[in-house]
């Protein structure tokens, strides 16, 4: 819409530990990297009124979400000396104990990686139009709200 090329961040279902491991392995050829910082969001089996969350169903305003993430990327690269950055988010069903968000930041030195990681995760939570509905093994669910 605005002519920006926004990369797809969405993965159908959970993000597997194997995918994360492979993503780390791919960075061994980048020998200017000294520090990787990774954030993983995992679905909690929260209790609510005696019922336990079994999974979250994620939906997104995908096109706007990808534009927002593109803006977050550009802002983080402008603010910090980063070597690379990868962001993935689940759509659809992610069960308790599974991973729905994977943010991976790399830089020559650790300060930039730590600071950028935290900023990026906060911006994703605040600005990216994604919704999670906490589901119980019975059919009913409740909509999450980010804090």
């Amino acid at each position, binding site marked *: 819409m605005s002519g920006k090329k926004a990369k797809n961040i969405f993965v159908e279902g959970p993000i597997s530990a194997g995918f994360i491991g492979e993503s780390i392995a791919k960075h061994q050829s980048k020998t200017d990297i000294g520090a990787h910082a990774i954030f993983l969001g995992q679905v909690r089996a929260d209790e609510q009124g005696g019922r336990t969350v079994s999974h979250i169903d994620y939906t997104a305003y995908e096109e706007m979400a990808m534009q927002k993430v593109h803006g977050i990327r550009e802002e983080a690269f402008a603010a910090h000396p980063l070597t690379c950055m990868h962001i993935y988010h689940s759509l659809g069903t992610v069960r308790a104990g599974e991973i729905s*968000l994977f943010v991976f930041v790399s830089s020559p030195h650790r300060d930039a990686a730590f600071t950028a990681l935290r900023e990026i995760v906060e911006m994703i939570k605040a600005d990216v*139009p*994604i*919704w999670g509905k906490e589901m119980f093994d019975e059919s009913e669910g409740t*909509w999450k709200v*980010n804090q």
Partner: protein
Amino acid sequence: MKEKDTDIQLVAFGMIAELLGGQEKQWPLTRDTDQLKAELIAAFPELKDLPFVVAVNMEVVQNNQPIAPGAQVALLPPYSGG
């Protein structure tokens, strides 16, 4: 997808989509976002009690904003990704 150029494409998400009975809807063109909100609340009174923001062509509207024919107007409840 567009039925008339003079309509707006309404898209809704999360609990708002559930209330409206679907994620996408055609809606007759209205002057601005305040008027659209009033029309929506008249049609779906429960909307009054639900927190949401409006985005026009993927930009969140801070106050009130005119709506052009063919615009994509989104109703966005509080985000909960992550």
